[in-house]
């Protein structure tokens, strides 16, 4: 990597991933040549139908379920909305008092629908988490009531990478009451982990294409047969009337291909990514003083390394790295347009002033050691410079 060449190092794979070449190749015929509508009865429609059916099978195989249990959506945001609001709608239409349990560290695509449901009279419990961001399972047991109909716990946290023990959570829920439905936002998990819906006792699972080297704007919701759910989006009766709208055939084909590759190459990618991430994290910890490590490496997916660089503001770190051609993300409030820093870090017990200094590095299958070394060559200088700008840093540090 020569200095005068414009470098670009992408370490933001939790935000999105580049579409794999093989995925693009699988998608291309479905834009113009095989452009049929999945719902048309003629042969062009049938061609689209079988392509979607094939993708559905691949996703079902990944989740170990039947392909009729897969509903295609526009992504995990929609899948989460459908899961939460769709199940709630079923019970609310029967005038039942219902209770939903989720966690404080979910993605906004869970938290916002929950807040909307609260306005409709649904009681929602937001479970606390342990220091490493994993849901506090003891609290889950205490939170279950006779009115609980749904528990939603993310498989992997998008900010710090912690893995929740869904197998154990599933068992607890079903033991308490087999009529409680179990949903997981598995968006960040499927690249790295098995997601066997049977083994994990899952009734609903949200997944998305663009986090696994597939296209953006496509996802799926697994809905176990017999799960009570009502449509949120109505219209042309597609997807067994649960999700109307013309099927995005090329994206669905790409999603199918992406999940097939993710499964086939999971072990190899995990090994490669973990090695690089561990190398990077070790160096950061050794070379930069006064940091907090927010990722529990022993209990997280291989991609994540989230740190607080105390005394340097996260968005300023992000922008400084950007100027060096390095792409990351931050939990600082300044990057979100909202006053508070990352709700995940706050729930983990990190004070606000420190949470503002967080940076999330998420590695992917294309990253190299040379890229990690390049980041390590500029990062310490950036942190030092921003700490130097900070009027409070030296003082709070020298006493």
């Amino acid at each position, binding site marked *: 990597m020569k200095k005068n060449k414009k470098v670009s190092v992408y370490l933001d794979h939790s935000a999105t991933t580049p579409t794999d070449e093989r995925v693009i190749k699988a998608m291309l015929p479905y834009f113009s040549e095989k452009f049929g509508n999945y719902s048309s009865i003629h042969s062009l429609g049938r061609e689209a139908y079988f392509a979607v059916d094939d993708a559905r099978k691949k996703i079902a195989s990944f989740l170990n379920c039947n392909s009729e249990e897969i509903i295609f959506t526009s992504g995990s945001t929609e899948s989460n909305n459908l899961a939460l609001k769709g199940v709630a709608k079923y019970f609310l239409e029967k005038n039942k008092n219902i209770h939903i349990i989720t966690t404080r560290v979910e993605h906004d695509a869970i938290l916002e629908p929950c807040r909307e449901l609260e306005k409709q009279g649904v009681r929602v419990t937001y479970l606390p988490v342990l220091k490493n961001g994993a849901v506090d399972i003891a609290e889950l047991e205490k939170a279950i009531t006779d009115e609980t109909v749904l528990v939603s716990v993310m498989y992997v946290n998008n900010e710090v990478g912690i893995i929740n023990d869904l197998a154990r959570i599933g068992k607890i829920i079903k033991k308490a009451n087999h009529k409680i439905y179990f949903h997981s936002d598995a968006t960040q998990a499927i690249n790295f982990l098995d997601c066997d819906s049977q083994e994990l006792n899952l009734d609903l699972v949200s997944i998305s294409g663009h986090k696994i080297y597939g296209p953006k704007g496509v996802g799926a919701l697994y809905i176990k047969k017999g799960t009570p759910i009502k449509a949120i989006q109505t219209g042309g009766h597609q997807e067994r009337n649960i999700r109307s709208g013309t099927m995005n055939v090329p994206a669905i084909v790409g999603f199918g291909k992406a999940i097939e590759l993710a499964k086939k190459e999971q072990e190899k990618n995990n090994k490669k990514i973990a090695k690089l991430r561990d190398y990077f994290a070790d160096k950061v910890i050794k070379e930069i003083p006064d940091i907090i490590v927010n990722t529990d490496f022993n209990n997280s997916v291989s991609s994540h390394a989230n740190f607080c660089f105390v005394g340097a503001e996260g968005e300023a770190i992000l922008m400084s790295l950007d100027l060096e051609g390095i792409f990351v993300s931050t939990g600082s409030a*300044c990057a979100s*347009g909202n006053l508070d820093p990352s709700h995940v870090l706050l729930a983990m017990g990190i004070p606000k002033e420190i949470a503002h200094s967080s940076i999330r590095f998420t590695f992917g299958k294309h990253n190299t050691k040379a890229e990690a070394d390049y980041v390590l060559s500029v990062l310490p200088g950036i942190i030092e410079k921003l700490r130097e700008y*900070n009027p409070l840093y030296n003082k709070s540090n020298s006493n």
Partner: protein
Amino acid sequence: MIYSDKVISHFKKPHNQGVLKNASTVGEVGNPSCGDVMKIYLKIENNIIKDVKFETLGCAAAIAVSSVLTDMVKGKSIDDALKITRKQIVDDLGGLPEPKIHCSMLGIEALHEAIKKYEKK
């Protein structure tokens, strides 16, 4: 959220960043729990701001605001410095993204705080 080239260039190489050893007055505003703190050092002689420096904890916008504001006040009389508005700062930076407009206020508040302390002396 997109920053203007001017914001980026001030952020990259902020003007007047540092500590003024023999400052006549210092103003500090903000709160680390909100993620931004600005401290402004003024050297004042005969009502003229002869020199100015800043230290800022904050985002790219906060640092760019500090840089451009300190450029603006240098050489001005106290009265003229007090007339600087947030709109002037934002305009000089070629605009700020909406969620960052409050950063421009931080600069003005730090300046006013420093001058208020100077006038009380």
